[in-house]
């Protein structure tokens, strides 16, 4: 990815004679603007080496239209606030290179799907995070500060399950990519269920029975049909589909346990 980007951007320019222009020196950008039912607005943005989609949006806001609303914070793939729909696919924009997603020089940017739009490219994420709460996505401690630190062997099955799912940055790409979220509005969604799976594998957690009850059923893990759009699109390469499958197996087991 990096090599391709460099070639299409900086390197190829160095190899060309000074007079030859880039294949296309301008990007044709179409952006969703809210207000009066919403419409698409066209902008022309100069191409630059190693340009990200977030760079493009920032350039438009600084040079063409200061009223364009979008959200970002860290710009380095940690905070999870800059996700948008880029040419039909939900992506984190700060680490999405234009060369990779718009080889023809055309970008269509829309807000994330499955969430209410506040303005332009900004979604209301409340529902997304409310579902984390509904999935009991907070750790419930069982020890106090006077207890010795818990010992969790890194090679244990639970620890490995949690490790595989823990790096979520809460960007909402999986949630926006999921058909089940669109079809079942009460569905908790891949991110909240993935979070619940990490806590179900935390041997120190004290709410695992209640959490399983909260995330099982047709508004929870059992609604997932393993389309795996979440897993396909997760910028952190997590596999919420696998986490949700784990919850289904946990729930199945608990059906045969008297005390759960």
């Amino acid at each position, binding site marked *: 990815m990096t090599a391709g980007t460099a070639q299409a951007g900086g390197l190829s320019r160095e190899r060309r004679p000074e007079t030859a222009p880039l294949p296309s020196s301008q990007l044709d950008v179409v952006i969703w603007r809210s207000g009066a039912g919403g419409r698409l607005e066209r902008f022309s943005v100069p191409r630059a080496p190693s340009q990200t989609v977030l760079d493009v949006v920032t350039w438009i806001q600084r040079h063409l239209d200061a009223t364009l609303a979008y959200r970002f914070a860290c710009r380095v793939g940690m905070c999870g606030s800059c996700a948008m729909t880029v040419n*039909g696919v939900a992506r984190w924009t700060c680490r999405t290179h234009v060369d990779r997603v718009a080889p023809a020089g055309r970008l269509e940017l829309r807000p994330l799907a499955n969430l209410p739009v506040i303005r332009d490219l900004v979604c209301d994420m409340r529902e997304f995070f409310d579902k984390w709460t509904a999935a009991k996505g907070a750790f419930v401690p069982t020890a106090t500060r006077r207890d010795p630190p818990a010992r969790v062997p890194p090679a244990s099955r639970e620890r490995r399950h949690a490790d595989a799912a823990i790096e979520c940055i809460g960007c909402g790409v999986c949630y926006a990519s999921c058909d089940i979220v669109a*079809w079942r509005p009460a569905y908790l969604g891949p991110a909240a269920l993935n979070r619940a799976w990490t806590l179900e594998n935390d041997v120190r957690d004290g709410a695992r029975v209640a959490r399983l009850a909260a995330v099982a059923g047709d508004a929870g893990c059992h609604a997932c049909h*393993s*389309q*795996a759009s979440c*897993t396909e699109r997760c910028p952190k390469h997590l*596999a919420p589909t696998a986490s949700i*499958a784990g919850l289904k197996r946990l729930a199945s087991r608990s059906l045969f346990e008297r005390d759960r």
Partner: protein
Amino acid sequence: MTKRETALARIASQHDRHAGWWAFIVHRVSGVALAVFLPVHFWALGEALRGDARLDAFLRWADAPAVRASEWAIVVLLGLHLTGGLRVLALEWLPWRGWQKSLAAAAAGVSLLVAVAFLVDLL
């Protein structure tokens, strides 16, 4: 828009398609088609209650090219739904990591094999 329009519009309009999504949609559509076919199939077989002459007449009818073509389609649907189902069972019950695309490809391959085998057999 009603909920139903929203769901169908989303199926038609989204550009975000990948192997897993196609595996899902094929699995679902073939499943619904089989659910429609199944009562007809059971009813036809039940007609044998009235003697094997009747069943033979049915089987002669079933020899017509159009009927044979739809039989082939149903066998293919069965193959597709079976392999799609095996994909889902594998994703849900096996400790997979990163081979979900290979699973979708395997399902498509096996379905194709079944389809071709039956086509060759029928012709």
